């Protein structure tokens, strides 16, 4: 187990990167806490897998350094770094039995037989693979194969970190939940550093203590699920986390105050000094926090969807369209309502980034 630090790290798959767009991962500093359970969340192509491969050593960064507990590992191979990684699609050694598959990483490191056997049995018990130990791995189902892949990651007692690259993509939904819980349990028991890549926010939020959100090669926010929800640091986080995503309204600066133009009743933001050089200002509020009240900005109700345990109201405020999430029992007039923007949850974004 180790604390993984990334110093001034950047990576490009282009030989001579020039523009920022050439970088799959833009320059950043980051420390993965020893024993932390992280989720790395972001859309496809945002650099998640690059990040993972940089940590494991499958990819050598074009700029910057990586240290494990202050030891520079930038030039080391995956085996030397002692990292475990589980891939999106199950990787198993077809000709081996399940037990041999699990023992493979240990045997390659020349561990004594007795210890190998003990570890294999421990991991098999943990992942409920015991009845299959003698079977050949080739004939098993996809989720059993993925369990074996995970088992190979978990079998080494001394790994610096275990990386998961969307490991549950091929797994049935009910097994997904089971395996995720298993992973959490394993984490609590052994306190490995776990980094879990996913583009599924539910998976990220239920698994992780801290979520690292990536977008377009940038790490846009690191925080607990609650922080991501209540104070998205980037409009992408607001839009990506939560269902439906954050309402974003174009804003302007007028008389030193930030306003959203609505005929008659401009929405003004109090207490925030707008940055001087921003090209684009946006006001963000989550549907959960947008209040429908008896007084406030008058808006027209366009549509109300009943989703069983809550309702979604689409309202029109001037030329802007917003979504509000309402409790089932909240009374609502047929066509008009009043909106209130609670100050605590109304955020200002300059060029997509949160203005603190």
């Amino acid at each position: 187990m180790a604390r993984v630090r990334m110093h001034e790290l950047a990576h490009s798959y282009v030989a001579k990167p020039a523009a920022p767009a050439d970088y799959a991962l833009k320059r950043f500093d980051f420390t993965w806490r020893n024993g932390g359970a992280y989720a790395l969340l972001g859309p496809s192509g945002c650099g998640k897998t690059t990040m993972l491969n940089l940590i494991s050593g499958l990819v050598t960064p074009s700029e910057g350094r990586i240290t494990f507990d202050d030891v520079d590992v930038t030039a080391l191979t995956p085996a030397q770094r002692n990292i475990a990684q589980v891939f999106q699609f199950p990787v198993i050694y077809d000709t081996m039995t399940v037990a041999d598959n699990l023992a493979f990483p240990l045997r390659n490191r020349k561990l004594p037989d007795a210890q190998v056997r003990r570890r294999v049995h421990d991991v098999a018990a943990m992942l409920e693979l015991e009845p299959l130990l003698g079977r050949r791995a080739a004939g098993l189902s996809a989720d059993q194969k993925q369990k074996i892949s995970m088992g190979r990651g978990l079998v080494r007692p001394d790994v610096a970190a275990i990386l998961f690259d969307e490991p549950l993509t091929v797994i049935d939904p009910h097994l997904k939940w089971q395996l995720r819980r298993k992973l959490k349990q394993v984490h609590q028991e052994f306190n490995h550093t776990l980094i879990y890549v996913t583009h599924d926010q539910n998976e990220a939020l239920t698994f992780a203590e801290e979520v690292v959100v990536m977008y377009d090669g940038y790490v846009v926010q690191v925080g607990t699920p609650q922080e991501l929800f209540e104070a998205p640091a980037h409009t992408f986080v607001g839009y990506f986390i939560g269902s439906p995503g954050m309402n974003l309204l174009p804003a302007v600066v007028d008389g030193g105050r930030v306003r959203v133009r609505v005929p008659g009743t401009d929405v003004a933001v109090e207490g925030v000094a707008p940055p001087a050089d921003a090209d684009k200002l946006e006001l963000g509020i989550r549907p959960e926090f947008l209040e429908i009240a008896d007084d406030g900005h008058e808006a027209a109700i366009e549509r109300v969807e009943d989703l069983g345990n809550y309702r979604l109201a689409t309202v029109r405020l001037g030329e802007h369209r917003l979504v509000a999430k309402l409790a089932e029992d909240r009374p609502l007039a047929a066509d008009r309502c009043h909106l209130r923007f609670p100050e605590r949850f109304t955020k200002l974004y300059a060029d997509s980034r949160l203005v603190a």
Partner: protein
Amino acid sequence: MNATSAQTATTPVLSEPAAARPALPVPILALVAVAALITAAALGLAPFTGRSVGGAAMALVFAAVHGAIAWGAYRAVNGLRLIYLASAPLVAVLGLLTGLEPRLALAGLVLWGVYFVVLNQGQALRWFGITVSAVSVVDTRPLDNRAWLLVLPVFAVVSISAIIPLMTVVNYSVQDIFGPGQAYFVGAEWFREMLHDDRLHGAMVRQILFSLTVLAIQIPLGVAVALAMPARGWRASVALVLVALPLLIPWNVVGTIWQIFGRPDIGLGGWALNNIGLDYNYTGDPIDAWITVVVMDVWHWTPLVVLLAYAGLRAIPDAFYQAAAIDGASRWATFRYIELPKLAGVLMIAVLLRFMDSFMIYTEPFVLTGGGPGNATTFLSIHLAKLAIGQFDLGPAAAFSLIYFLVILLFSFVFYTVLTRVGRGDA
């Protein structure tokens, strides 16, 4: 109305779900028995030569085979239905084309008709608006036999290119042929003679030795070369073209190239070997001739193995190599546990292709050594060609080529079975 209900409306019996299949019912058994008797009678009355007892016996065998195929077809082996339906008219056509006996053709057609009805579960008759309830209840799976029509073109081509020539050879193998219209049925005599022929035994031993030798060299060498080739970029293209060059050369030219290359007087290879002090002469020394033939085959055919193995290697996803790197696998372990298992499929094809090709090698040694010196490089096909088109012993040559065919079939079947088991991990 949707498609399902339309089907239900017109063919209620067929659309019922198929539960456990019933045991072979009496109507089917009776039909098979009648068909077998008709065949046996027809053929027995008109045996292959018009008089011998052997003809009647063969007819019975013929009928038994038909019965067995029909049984297999009934036991839900769909491929067998097709084979059967193809085989019965084929027998008819063959009867006519190979000049065996017109009545055989008739018998074949009758059989075909009977089985067509039986195996179709009456479906064919339904095309003409006739419902045969006794047969239609046998199999409750919906069948759409019109798909067979799609097979007809292939069937026609294969008949002309393979099946009819093959059956002509079968016909020759049981006759002593003196000239056009002068053929006499001799039964299994040629087979007996061939199986006890010393020259054939010698050729067979040489052939097996040759095939095993080239397989033992070409498969590992091909994999090794494929592993050493660049994976991508222009270097990969260049390497592929260079490796594939020998495959583009006509076989007789390959033989000629090596014939000249190996000559001690004017060939670069032979001349060089003699000049470094080796006494090399492939036209006089059996060992030298063998080495030359083997090296030539390796040069000519290893590229095929390389191409197959290369394609197999490129098909392995990167994640496997990454997982191996993370698991700390050595280069050898990566080869042993990832590359080799993933190559098993293409290597099986490579082994089969190379075995079958090397087992029938003819052109190159024919050009290079002509089977000599003495009989040193006389392989089966060279021996066969001498027999068939050198001496015009058509009967013995036909018997020989059938034995040859069966041997290849047997070896290939064994290889295939063993290798697919290995691939599945049951071995």
